[in-house]
């Protein structure tokens, strides 16, 4: 049901079904009596009564908004990067927004000295997060953080390289981490996408994913692990950076011609089964220079996101596994800091307030998930 609601935008003003119960019949009878009374009155009185009668009927229906029909909002978790605690080295934080709208920071990855952390990706229960960390003078590495134990999970054999690895993405259903690597000896030439099996402590073969000539970057593995979206600079005559989709089961790259344009498409994000596809483009016709777009791969069409984009730059979308929520970065005049994170509810077609999420320091790289039940780590632990 949620899936069909999310597909068919706009979602608001669904037709209200007429009731047939006793109460409805009584109301119908009352209306008929009122009509008879009305027609027996002088014109002036009749006009006034008619006005109020119409108002009484129309106003309640006009107040039938999407809010009345929306499923209750779940608990939402957003992992993100921020300079809020340190203006030299960025940290990764975990933020929780309750179903009743209270928000607070519920975790922070504790970095080593002089390390900047970026680009978190959460497990679907919100307890684990993969991220990129760069110590001054050392190349970027991929780290795995347990928010429950407040400790790093070792990734042996992953970071054994002299070149940088970045932009990780995690599928908790399969225990796979996708990331991009620059010129990793023995595996990749230039920028390629790597896939790592956390439990097996080994890289997974993806023979058709990378090309020798072009750069594959910014991988986003779907939560169910079936799909990897990524960017490529493989150009046709009129295209710039584009997005591709890798089907793991078939070891096949899907080109997505309906999604890409002659402009730049980048920063892909996927719902659980890879059906909904959020991304950024600077194509003509947007509200700002860069806007967030949503593509329904099943219907092969772009879906409207009313109220999401602004005249500013929207970037770095993350879509929840169920496809309902999109977290993204924007720069707006009425914001808390320069770069803030916003949360959009596709069902309500509006931004959701996120108290205490943003600070005067930059917030960026959001990863949003939905919790059916809050994990044991959240709520009680407070900020690490």
């Amino acid at each position, binding site marked *: 049901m949620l899936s069909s609601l999310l597909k068919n935008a706009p979602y608001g003003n669904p037709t209200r079904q007429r009731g047939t119960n006793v109460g409805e019949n009584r109301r119908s009878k009352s209306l008929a009596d009122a009509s008879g009374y009305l027609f027996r009155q002088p014109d002036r009185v009749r006009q006034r009564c008619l006005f109020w009668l119409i108002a009484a009927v129309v106003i309640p229906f006009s107040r039938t908004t999407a809010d009345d029909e929306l499923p209750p909002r779940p608990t939402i978790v957003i992992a993100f990067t921020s300079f809020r605690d340190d203006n030299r080295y960025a940290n990764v934080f975990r933020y929780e927004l309750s179903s009743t709208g209270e928000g607070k920071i519920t975790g922070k990855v504790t970095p080593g000295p002089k390390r900047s952390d970026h680009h978190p990706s959460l497990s679907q229960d919100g307890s684990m997060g993969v991220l990129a960390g760069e110590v001054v003078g050392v*190349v970027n590495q991929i780290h795995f953080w347990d928010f429950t134990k407040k400790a790093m999970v070792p990734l042996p054999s992953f970071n054994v390289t002299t070149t*940088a690895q970045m932009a990780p993405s995690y599928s908790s259903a399969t225990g796979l981490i996708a990331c991009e690597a*620059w010129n990793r000896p023995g595996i990749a030439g230039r920028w390629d996408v790597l896939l790592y099996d956390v439990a097996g402590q080994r890289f997974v073969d993806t023979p058709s994913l990378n090309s020798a000539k072009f750069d594959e970057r910014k991988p986003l593995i779907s939560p169910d692990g079936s799909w990897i979206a990524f960017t490529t600079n493989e150009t046709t005559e009129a295209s710039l950076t584009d997005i591709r989709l890798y089907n793991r089961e078939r070891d096949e790259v899907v080109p997505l011609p309906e999604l890409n344009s002659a402009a730049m498409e980048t920063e892909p994000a996927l719902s659980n089964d890879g059906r909904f596809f959020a991304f950024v483009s600077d194509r003509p016709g947007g509200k700002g220079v860069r806007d967030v777009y949503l593509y329904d791969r099943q219907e092969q069409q772009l879906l409207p996101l009313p109220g999401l984009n602004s005249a500013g730059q929207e970037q770095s979308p993350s879509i929840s596994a169920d496809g309902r929520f999109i977290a993204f970065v924007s720069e707006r005049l*009425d914001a808390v800091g320069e770069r803030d994170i916003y949360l959009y509810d596709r069902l309500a077609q509006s931004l959701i307030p996120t108290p205490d999420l943003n600070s005067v320091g930059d917030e960026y790289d959001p990863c949003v998930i939905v919790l059916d039940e809050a994990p044991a780590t959240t709520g009680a632990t407070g900020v690490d």
Partner: protein
Amino acid sequence: MWNFGRTFSSNCQGVTRRDVFQVGGLNLLGLSLAESLRRGAVQAAEQKPVSDRSCVFIWLNGGPSHFETFDPKPDTDDTVRGPYGCINTPVAGVQISELLPMLAQRMEKYSVIRSMTHKNTSHGSTAMLTGFDNKLEAFGAVVTRLQGAQRAMPPYVHVGSTPGDGSQVTSNIDRVGGGSLGSAYGPISVRDPSGKKVELPNFSLSADITADRFQQRQALLDAVDQSRRELDQSPSVERMETYYRRAIEMLTSTRVRDAFDLNREKATLRMRYGANFFGQACLMARRLVEAGTRYVQIKWYDVVAFDAWDCHGAELPGMMRMEQQLCPRLDQGLAAFIDDLDDRGMLDSTLVVVAGEFGRTPKINKSGARDHWPHCFSALMAGGGIPGGTIVGASDRKGAYPARRPVSPTEFAATIYNILGIDTTNDARIRPYINNALPVGELTGA
């Protein structure tokens, strides 16, 4: 140096740092501007012809990659070419990085020097701010010295961080200003026109002001009034040069305040420039030159906040920053700035210069980014009567060295001075600041 807006110091009245308008030092600091005004009057008396052109110098602090901005090399070796595509411009055969789509559309309104070159790999190099690696006299200071103020506006304004406001001085570049000319020719400094989002609290009373903040601001205004009263009552006032009074009147005038006040602009226009420090700094620059300021220098963000162009690393310290922050902000802010100047008929009278201290290495480093490279890089110029759509010089196949028409920092300086109406051939006063360098003829028509 005068500091407006957000600083790291507090004044004698205990006003919070974001509300600092350094009236406490008005009488002392007023000497600088008064001297500047006096020099301007002397200069006028010498009947030197003065151009009405202004300059906005955008300093891309940290050293932008020429590969990922105005000189992409998509067909070079695997270790050189970056991950981004090239975008066509309206000028036949000219492409720039796909990260700058709005500027690509406006190529006919600006020109690019693709063969800037010098030898200093340090961020401390002052070459691109003064024309020399060992001088401290900023272009703005020299212009102020030779042309003085106009239309009762401060002649030289710096927007962005500076050492004088309490931040750390790490190299010569932090000392660039009046130099040997003296502080009289240093800039009035607005550290952060945004405070957070481009508000000059002391210049305007916004609708959401709290009672406390209002009282603090009122204290500032009272301090200004007190300064005025003291001046009026002092026996020495009669003997004081007119210039001191003019300096104080200038800096406390409604007209000057209004020029700094971005809240007077429509929100739609502010958003066109970008809701960030750089975009709003460009908008402030437009307001200032419109009001009569001769030289505005915008310094890109500080290095410490990972907002500068010094991208050595991966993720946000590297290419990701180019893609997500730096280029989008430059693209939107500069394009809006050029459009706005053009729409208002100000582009011909306003020279816009965009440059950093150097470019970046052709070879991509182990983090997937680029390091310092002064041997060949790009600078942009727009307006001021220069022809648009011109590419001056060229880099070699790998973007490593000039392949044609190398341009030195002194030639760069001579070009700026020449466009601003200073006679770089016959005016002996300019010689120490350009040596024997000639302006770039492709841009000046000389």
